[in-house]
């Protein structure tokens, strides 16, 4: 596998990446310059995915997770920064080269049922991937082979999407992503909307594929338990910024950023008490008008005047663990309690 030819090198390396929607990218000036400021859905993000690694990306709806995933794959144009895949920068790459490289980077879309054409059966849906890439016939995996990789029987090949359950449709989506033998998959909420039993089965499947095929994932989710179980590294996103990132177990056990703490605290597990002071109030602010200073200060239970004025830098808060909070030390030691 080509990923293995870069030992110790990141498979995906994102540096200072920003994605804008609206005016900034339009290039319009003067009279035609739009009055509404651009929406920076992804703002100066650094992220590294090593070969075979699972990076979990969590955050509320509207935090920019999906946009980051799409920008990494080149499905959105970055407004700034760089994405490197296997050592090569994707920014400024010619469309032909980009197409070749992109075969190795695939996406499992969020709404699997909707992403499958209702007029094609499973076998056609799997073949379509090769048709689009104009793959020669002898280099194609058969539908039966792809289906068995995702633990579906070959009898599903003739079924249409409406005949599939949510879990089965998700498996077909995964099979479509596997067709091009990718090194890297962006899995966008692969478990949302599925039954509890199907969620566990899909997670088991993704983990098995990772160890068998050494695929790296960017696993976008708001299922914090799933991410704590699956991921090697967790990155927490808030209003376009990564506010905390670190080794999964460490981050799940001892989150440093008050936002991460609140997210972890909000998971409902019967029989476990929540800590009421960590309940976040209100809604996520509009990313078009992000708050000044630390973007989380409007909802943070520990916010100080400094947080309103100055944006916190990412600091080393443990081995391989970065936190963007002015007061993470005080919060961790408990000396800095709620006002």
């Amino acid at each position, binding site marked *: 596998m080509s990923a293995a030819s870069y030992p110790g090198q990141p498979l995906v390396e994102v540096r200072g990446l920003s994605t804008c929607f609206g005016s900034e990218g339009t290039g319009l000036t003067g009279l035609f310059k739009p009055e509404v400021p651009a929406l920076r859905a992804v703002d100066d993000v650094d992220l590294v995915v090593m070969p075979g690694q699972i990076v979990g990306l969590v955050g*509320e*709806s*509207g935090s920019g997770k999906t946009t980051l995933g799409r920008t990494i794959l080149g499905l959105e144009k970055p407004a700034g920064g760089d994405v490197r895949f296997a050592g090569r920068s994707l920014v400024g790459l010619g469309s032909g080269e980009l197409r070749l490289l992109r075969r190795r980077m695939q996406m499992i879309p969020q709404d699997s049922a909707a992403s499958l054409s209702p007029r094609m059966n499973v076998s056609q849906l799997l073949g379509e991937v090769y048709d689009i890439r104009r793959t020669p016939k002898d280099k194609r995996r058969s539908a039966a082979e792809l289906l068995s990789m995702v633990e579906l029987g070959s009898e599903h090949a003739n079924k249409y999407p409406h005949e599939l*359950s*949510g879990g089965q449709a998700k498996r077909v989506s995964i099979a479509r992503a596997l067709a091009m033998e990718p090194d890297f998959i962006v899995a966008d909420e692969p478990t949302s*909307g599925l*039954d*509890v*039993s*199907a*969620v*566990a*089965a899909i*997670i*088991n499947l993704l*983990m098995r594929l990772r160890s068998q095929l050494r695929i790296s994932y960017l696993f976008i989710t*708001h*299922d*914090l*338990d*799933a991410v*704590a*179980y699956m991921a090697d590294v967790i990155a927490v996103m808030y209003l376009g910024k990564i506010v905390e990132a670190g080794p*999964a*177990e460490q981050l*799940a056990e001892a989150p440093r950023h008050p936002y991460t703490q*609140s*997210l972890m605290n*909000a*998971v*409902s*597990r*019967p*029989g476990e008490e*929540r800590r009421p002071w960590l*309940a*976040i109030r*209100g*809604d*996520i602010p509009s990313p078009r008008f992000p708050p000044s200073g630390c973007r989380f200060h409007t909802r943070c239970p520990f916010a100080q005047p400094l947080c309103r004025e100055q944006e916190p830098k990412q600091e080393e808060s443990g081995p391989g663990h970065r936190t963007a909070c002015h007061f993470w030390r005080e919060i961790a030691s408990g000396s800095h309690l709620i006002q």
Partner: protein
Amino acid sequence: MSTGGSLLEIEDLSISYLVDGIPLRGLRGVSLDLARNRILGVVGESGSGKSTLSFAITRLLPSNARIDEGSIRFEGQDLVKADMTTLETLRGDRIAMVFQDPLSSLHPCLTIGQQMSDAQRAHRRIGAGERRARSAEMLDTVGIAEAEQNLGRFPHEFSGGMRQRIMIAMSLLLQPDLLIADEPTSALDVLLQGQIIALLNGLRERLGTAVMIVSHDLGVIGEAADDVLVMYAGETMEYSPVGQIFAQPLHPYTEALLAVMPGRKARGRPLPTIPGRVPSASETSLGCAFAGRCERARSVCHANRPVYSAVGERRVRCHIYDPLSGWHVAPETGQREGAPT
């Protein structure tokens, strides 16, 4: 179980869907009681009949659905026999419903204020000014700030969590006695889920509304509900107060659901799953609907349908809890086994 204070009493309700003239299973002998001021959580996998049950109560079932037998008593009145006029006065007024997808339940071309006003006008004779004031007050109750201003906005201008809260506000405008919430949190992230649960709990306390929450998320049910009804393949498998069901599930299906529930799981080991799948609506079995996936199933489970029997204040549909079922006669030895605890 059955107390005089029940607001909603469903007895032995069976529903089938006619597809090409063939009846497919919707519900099979469902019974439940819901008192005022209580929150009932209904859980089960897709295809378990949860949504059929909620649509049956509001009599909003699709046209190919047929109520085969049973009764749905709301304050003593049987909704199965009720005529359209009665149903229309009850729906939206005394019985309100919040659906899974707030965006498709709100009219995209009308402002929130217009929609909230219409909901009141359909059932009450109140002036426009008062309707608007009530709408604003209800938006405030569900935690939407600048209510007056927001009434003039359209659904697409709100986030998913806000839309779901607007739906709840709308359903509560006329202070219904019963609120049915079908997967109210499943499209929302954890922070919003927590907000919606807190909101439903607060409303129950303030207004005495009885709430039925339908969800496949046991975490949400565990936090929000007083009592839990576990459904499988159109049947009720277990009914129990929430604390007991998590501490000591009776039905093997409940046990399996709890085992696969997301939660902190040890890394590096595959997650437990429930093998097999929910039987499709066209599959009928003589025995227990769960027998094909049940680790403890014996021959009697495949042959006879278990009864929904009382175990203390709980109820369970499983041969294990029926001493007369023949389950306890172990197939190999013919010796009787003690009922598991």
